[in-house]
């Protein structure tokens, strides 16, 4: 754990590295990205061990959600770096000839990345990839709630990366507060709404731009399906998107399901059968589902279940093992909408099913709640798909699957409203740590002398024509054939 008094020399060293210009060099950025790639390969076993220790994650899940996606992202950054770093030409109107204009991507400077405990490697390193590719100096503060992962990051980053330009600072709220008092060129925060507010308020003091990746209650709308093959595939995806995603402790995990009341019994049957297939008859023995991160969150979830009005709605699972911080995959049918299970983000393996009279009612249901990070819709109905896109708002929408949008790098990943703002993944990661500097190059050879004082009607008439790109009108005025009206 970092001593708070010692932070200033570290930060000064990072600023100096940035000022020296070395992080701007393509060669430096490439070497850092390659370093990350090597870290992921060589430390794979230790990463799996840390995640197993912190969260009880199976290494296949750890690979799928963290190591694998990170490897993919680093490779993309390496192969695209030259393209991302190049200036983009901007088109200018003829009247501006012979000027040229471009947008030059430059790094912001020294950036702070604060990550969360549920995907401690993924949510730490995915933004770091963007920050480094964009040429910044970086401080990473991993979550103290995942201590094995935080400690592994603190140990390995200085070994594989340039320790004068990329630092890991471990610690909890006190260290976080101290870091937030410093002046950063950007803060990238993944976490909950409460801390998100604190981060943005602190950033306001220094006019630091922020990206906030928060959460929300991500609904899954389940339309009825006919073919049995479709049903099985879709059910797998639903369960994978809940219990298979860090036991539901994911910002984009399915929070609850909306289904038409007639179809609910069928859905429930399908879910229960597949849950048994995935996690076994006795889920406590499964190695394929993560544990709850700590006692505090375990008790939070247990309390949700202990509410009598909620407990009576449990239709599958519900068993808890406090010693092992394990909660069984649990399904509930229509818990009261005013109970905390339906007002707060669940972030755990409890899956409420809410029934509606018509599946289209899901639109109003979703719209009456804060905007979520993701909306999932399982349907083949093209009209419903179009309506969801145009009538609801969320960070993203995924049809007929869940979570997998995290692995796509051509679409931005980020929230809106209470689920946050800003985005990353793929080139969007690079952009989020970049200032797009506009550059206009003019020639000293030509001039529109009518731009300058002293003013008169003739000049005004010329200006009006020029600024509306009325070239013909411009000529007329010049020749004295048209006057300022």
């Amino acid at each position, binding site marked *: 754990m970092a001593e708070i008094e010692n932070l200033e020399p570290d930060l000064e060293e990072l600023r100096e590295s940035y000022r020296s210009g070395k992080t701007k060099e393509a060669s430096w950025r490439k070497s850092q990205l390659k370093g990350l790639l090597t870290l992921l390969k060589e430390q794979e076993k230790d990463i799996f061990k840390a995640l197993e220790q912190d969260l009880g994650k199976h290494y*296949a899940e750890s690979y799928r959600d963290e190591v694998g996606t990170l490897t993919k992202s680093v490779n993309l950054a390496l192969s695209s770096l030259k393209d991302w770093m190049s200036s983009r030409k901007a*088109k200018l109107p003829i009247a501006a000839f012979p000027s040229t204009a471009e947008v030059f991507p430059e790094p912001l400077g020294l950036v702070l990345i604060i990550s969360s405990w549920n995907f401690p490697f993924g949510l730490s390193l995915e933004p770091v990839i963007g920050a480094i590719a964009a040429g910044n100096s970086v401080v990473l503060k991993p979550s103290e709630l995942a201590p094995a992962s935080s400690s592994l990051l603190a140990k390995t980053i200085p070994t594989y990366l340039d320790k004068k330009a990329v630092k890991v600072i471990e610690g909890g709220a006190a260290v976080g507060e101290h870091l937030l008092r410093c002046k950063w060129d950007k803060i990238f925060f993944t976490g909950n709404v409460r801390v998100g507010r604190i981060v943005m308020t602190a950033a306001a003091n220094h006019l630091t731009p922020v990206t906030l990746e928060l959460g929300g209650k991500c609904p899954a709308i389940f339309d009825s399906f006919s073919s049995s093959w479709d049903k099985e595939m879709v059910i797998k995806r639903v369960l994978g998107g809940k219990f298979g995603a860090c036991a539901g402790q994911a910002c984009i995990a399915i929070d609850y399901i909306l289904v038409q009341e007639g179809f609910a019994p069928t859905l429930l049957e399908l879910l229960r059968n597949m849950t048994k297939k995935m996690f076994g008859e006795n889920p406590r023995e499964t190695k394929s589902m993560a544990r709850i991160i700590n006692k505090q969150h375990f008790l939070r979830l247990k309390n949700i279940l202990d509410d009598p009005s909620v407990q009576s709605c449990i239709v599958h699972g519900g068993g808890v093992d406090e010693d092992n911080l394990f909660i069984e995959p649990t399904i509930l049918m229509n818990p009261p909408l005013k109970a905390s299970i339906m007002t707060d983000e669940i972030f755990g393996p409890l899956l409420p099913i809410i029934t509606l009279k018509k599946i289209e009612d899901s639109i109003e249901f979703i719209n009456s709640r804060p905007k979520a990070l993701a909306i999932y819709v399982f349907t083949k109905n093209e009209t419903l*798909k179009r309506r969801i896109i145009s009538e609801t708002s969320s960070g993203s929408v995924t049809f007929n699957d869940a979570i*997998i949008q995290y692995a796509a790098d051509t679409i931005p990943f980020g929230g809106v409203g209470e689920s946050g703002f800003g985005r990353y993944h793929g080139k969007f990661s690079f952009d989020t740590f970049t200032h797009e500097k506009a550059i206009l190059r*003019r020639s000293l050879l030509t001039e529109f002398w009518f731009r300058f004082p002293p003013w008169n009607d003739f000049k005004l008439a010329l200006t009006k024509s020029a600024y509306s790109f009325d070239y013909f009108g411009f000529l007329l005025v010049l020749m004295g054939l048209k006057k300022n009206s």
Partner: protein
Amino acid sequence: MAEDSETKKVFDAEAAASLMKELRGTYASGKTRSYEWRVAQLKNLMKIVDDHEKDILDAIRADLSKPEQESYIAEISIIKSSCTRALGELNRWMKPEKVKTSITTFPSSAEIVSEPLGVVLIIGAWNFPLLLALDPAIGAIAAGNAVVLKPSELCPATSSLIAKLVGKYLDSSCIKVVEGAVAETSALLEQKWDKIFFTGSGRVGRIVMAAAAKHLTPVALELGGKCPVVVDSDINLPVAIRRIAGGKWASNNGQACIAPDYIITTKDFAPKLIDALKHELEAWYGKDPLESKDLAHIVNSNHFARLAKLLDDDKVSGKIIHGGQRDKANLKFAPTILLDVPEDSLVMNEEIFGPLLPILTVDKLEDSFDMITSRGKPLAAYLFTNNKKLKEKFVKTVSAGGLVINDTVLHFAEKTLPFGGVGESGMGSYHGKFSYEAFSHRKSVLYRGFAGDASARYPPYSDRKLKLLKALLSGSVVGVILALIGWS
């Protein structure tokens, strides 16, 4: 809605809450989403400027005594061209953007769909009172949002004209103007907006962002800074001088966020530069600039006193080499040039926002680049030179919102360039398509098919599944096939 000045209701927290409730209702009705609605509003906005050009110029003159041509170029024509561009491009901007997908999510297709953020607040500034309220509004409306405009209270005639014309020409169930000062703005800032777009000073920018933080509202802050002009000796001096002088004194007499704040040039070249400047100033404003009708006034006595203080500073008063005349009663201030003021003087440590132009001399121009960035990143930085190497070094090392080589301020008019600050000069950008994007949420939409699925994704997990996952995530088609073959 016309208000009698005696019985004018106070816009307080309750009024703000009820305003927000009304706008959320109209936004939820979907009214602002249609292409037709957006086009109608933009066309009407254009009409405001076309049909009321004289009223607008009169109001701006009453508030700022700005010469008509300046108001025309800087405010009216830019709004017209923004509207024209938005109307011409809206269809394209509103279309979803199809994007490629990789084998990791195969089979799938994806697109990015733009949607409005919802109910947005735009706070304008006083130096270009019409432009800085309406130009962002064009983006907000084009993007399909409900909008509240809060024009600057330091320009009462323009603010009141904006309220009247917007109320008359635009859909007042979705677009509203709230006039007022600190109390009214504070009441507005307490509400939960889907975006706040603010133009003004860094001090107030911090207040706006802190208020936004309570509701996790994203913000765009267009602030200012000390925009330097670096002048080399190998240039076409007459042209350069006109552009520098134009950017400074023909832009609201220096009261512009992108006006050149100070000049850096070599010791050798300074005399020639100063001579040329003095000449041009006399040609533009005559021997007695306070008599000229082509020079805008200082906005109010507070700012006048602020500028006077910068000049009366002991460290500086001996460095005035041109100008310095002022008329407190009429808020007139002549173009004033200062030479080699000390770096710790007041005038070199805050944004001048007025007609004072310090010239700093150095031995080598490259040495000045670090000096520039050490003062906080400005909104713009300018370089006059024909030296290619110097241009490249400038572009690489000077960080600012935007750079212009061999001119000043003009990048503001180029709609294909994003206009915005970095660091102390702000965050976010607008103009052209960037305005539309500033008020939009670009929503990712992923369509997944049913054709094939890797059971490797799901529990119960195993080593074999791990192999397939590795192949899938690395995008290796061969790897995927091999793993699948070995699988079945």
